[in-house]
């Protein structure tokens, strides 16, 4: 009974699969070019990570967005302190008596965001006037400005989020949360932008396309031109199977590499990223989706490129043309997000969609976070008397550039699932075409 089971067709199938996959992996391992390609891939990602480490360890100069740290009248008291005590900040004879003047730094980052409890229900009311320059009577904020947004609650912020157009509208009362901690915001934004930029453009796109180009294009073709394919096809095994098992061997090299790389990068960003605790545990989710996306993308490209290799001796020409198309689609996807339809006619578009969905799951406040940096910039520009020292907070622009919605109009989980299924379908289709071409190929040389 036992031996019968051991020798069933399926167990034999399994043995063949492991034999070819194992053989293919050993073949890769003996080639120097494999190690060069993987080494360069790892090295280039670490090179970019170097810049990230540098940014995380650089002190970002805090900006006084509401400019209340200046002592306009030269009486030693910063504007904010004078406002709170009701003296005239523009009159050097008017200053709070009996109180020591505050150091300037105290009034630079004095009113951080209090939007943590914002939800993406239609309307949420958030914001707290930490520095008290809205709540207190003073020259800067008139009675009407205390309820600019007209929700009859003074000194708060109304967030209106439209699920339909996915636009966040921020309507604030005067001087609420107007001067957040720039460094905190910048580091968080740069951290997220780095993960998205390196994840999407570096790992999913760059490695996702070049690893298969180098490693999978010759999966079948190299064996055919070398003349070593004769050994394999003279065995009781269908050619379609050979293709699958060779693919398995290729994935056996590429997937562990990608998993290791993502793990390494997640550790790097987890320890170095801005965090209250020792390690940013929640970011593991985004690295997980990046890893999944990269694995699926290498699977699809591997199937496509090895099919090109079967189709034609010069299959690399087709592969390079496809790579150029995919590069264009990657830029479209990053710039336009899920809103463009054309990226759905590519592999990379779906791959990046998985990352986008993952980002939305990991950082549900992403839209608001980007809008926050923009909003503060706008506020400070309205108020600015310093000319060019205004604009979105540092890190806001990269984050805006590298993040985008998945644009499928469904929840994030479903979007990631759909994109994964599409990629698997693409891989299966490429494999099917590849194996039918391979079966019809007369191996004559």
């Amino acid at each position, binding site marked *: 009974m036992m031996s019968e089971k051991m020798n069933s067709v399926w167990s034999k199938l399994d043995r063949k699969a492991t034999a*070819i996959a194992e*053989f293919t992996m050993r073949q890769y391992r003996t080639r120097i070019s494999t190690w060069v390609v993987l080494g360069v891939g790892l090295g280039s990602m670490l090179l970019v990570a170097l810049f990230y480490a540098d940014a995380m360890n650089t002190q970002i100069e805090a900006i006084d967005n509401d400019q209340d740290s200046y002592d306009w009248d030269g009486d030693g008291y910063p504007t904010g302190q004078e406002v709170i005590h009701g003296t005239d900040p523009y009159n050097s004879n008017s200053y709070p008596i009996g109180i020591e003047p505050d150091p300037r730094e105290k009034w630079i980052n004095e009113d951080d965001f209090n939007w943590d409890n914002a939800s993406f229900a239609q309307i949420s009311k958030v914001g707290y006037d930490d520095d008290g320059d809205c709540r207190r009577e003073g020259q800067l904020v008139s009675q009407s400005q205390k309820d600019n947004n007209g929700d009859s609650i003074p000194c708060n912020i109304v967030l209106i989020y439209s699920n339909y157009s996915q636009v966040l509208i921020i309507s604030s009362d005067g001087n609420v949360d107007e001067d957040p901690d720039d460094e905190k915001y910048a580091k968080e934004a740069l951290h997220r932008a780095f993960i998205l930029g390196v994840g999407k453009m570096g790992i999913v796109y760059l490695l996702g396309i070049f690893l298969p180009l180098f490693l999978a294009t010759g999966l079948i073709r190299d064996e055919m031109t070398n003349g070593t394919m004769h050994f394999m096809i003279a065995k*009781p095994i269908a050619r379609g199977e050979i293709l699958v098992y060779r693919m398995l061997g290729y994935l056996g090299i590429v997937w562990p590499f990608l998993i290791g790389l993502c793990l390494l990068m997640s550790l790097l960003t987890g320890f170095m990223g801005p965090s209250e605790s020792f390690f940013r545990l929640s970011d593991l989710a985004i690295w997980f989706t990046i890893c999944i996306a990269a694995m699926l993308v290498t699977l699809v490209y591997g199937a496509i490129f090895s099919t090109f290799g079967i189709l034609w001796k010069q299959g690399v020409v087709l592969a390079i043309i496809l790579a150029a198309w995919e590069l264009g689609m990657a830029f479209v996807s990053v710039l336009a997000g899920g809103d463009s339809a054309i990226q759905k006619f590519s592999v990379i578009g779906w791959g990046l969609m998985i990352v986008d969905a993952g980002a939305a799951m990991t950082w549900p406040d992403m839209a608001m976070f980007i809008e926050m940096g923009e909003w503060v910039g706008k506020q400070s520009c309205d108020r600015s008397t310093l000319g060019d020292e205004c604009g979105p907070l540092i890190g806001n622009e990269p984050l805006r550039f590298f993040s985008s919605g998945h644009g499928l109009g469904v929840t994030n989980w479903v979007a990631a699932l759909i994109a994964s299924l599409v990629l698997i379908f693409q891989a299966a289709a490429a494999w099917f075409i590849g194996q039918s071409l391979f079966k019809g190929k*007369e191996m004559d040389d």
Partner: protein
Amino acid sequence: MMPDLSQVGEAETKEWVPDNTAPVVMFDNVSKQYGRINALTSISFALSGGVTGVLGMNGAGKSTLFKLMMGKIKPSAGEVKLFGQNPWKNTAPYARVGFVPEHEKMHDWMTALDFITTFARLHGLTRDEAEKEATRVLNFVGLGDVMLKQIGRFSKGMRQRVKIAHALVNDPELIILDEPLQGCDPLARTSIMNVIRELGRMGRTVLVSSHILHEIERITEQIVILHNGRLLALGNSHAIREMLDQHPHKISITCEDPKALAKDVIDIEEVRGLSIPYANNLIIETQHFGVVHAKLPGIIVDNSHKVSQIDSPDDDLQSILRYLTGGS
């Protein structure tokens, strides 16, 4: 290029039950064209058991014949069957086939044992079984002591033997060897020929191709002769020789005075022609080799000709082939 969906690959899902009544190899009116070149034209034969030599000059179609058998190419017309199955459509019969390709390229980075073990596993053996079998066949071809060395370091004859060992690992009933002796030194040739003869004695069906005839002669008497894609002769080499008796046969005599000898020999009525290609040599052409051969000694002795050598250039396979393939 339209994908060919006709290949079913039953090997994956269905245990293949061999049909023991079918001949091991059968070619039914098979033709193969490459563009406008006819590589094979209307080949029909069936083989079961024994060692068979496939003979022909370069470009005669030997390799095409083997490629058809191994399902590498598709016949343009006719049917190829291995154990009653179409090898282009179904790879299952390869479980009982061992193939030694002509190609010199191998996976040089593997050791001989690794190489054979890996490919043995494609027959559905477990790793341990495969390793055991690989060791067995490597010992069989006499490479047991170097089986842990890389193939890239092997000499040509050793590489050839590795290929043969690889073909034997599944204990096949049909073994196909494409030019196994090509480029080997005499020592390697002898050992490879011994291996092939041994296989024949074990009752396997063995197909060996070559264009060097006396080597095939040392292995087998059963031959297939191809020329320009056509089947010229098939069967026992003696039987073919018998048949050749119907064709003009040559006897070469080395003597001191060929002209005088020619004068005497012309009296034999069975002699069809005489020629003196160079001094000291006379060539007699006849259709009745036996008769002439019987009468010759008498004539020589009676007329006291000084003859140093009599031989028949036809009396070996090489000349049969040369005749069949239209040479000399």
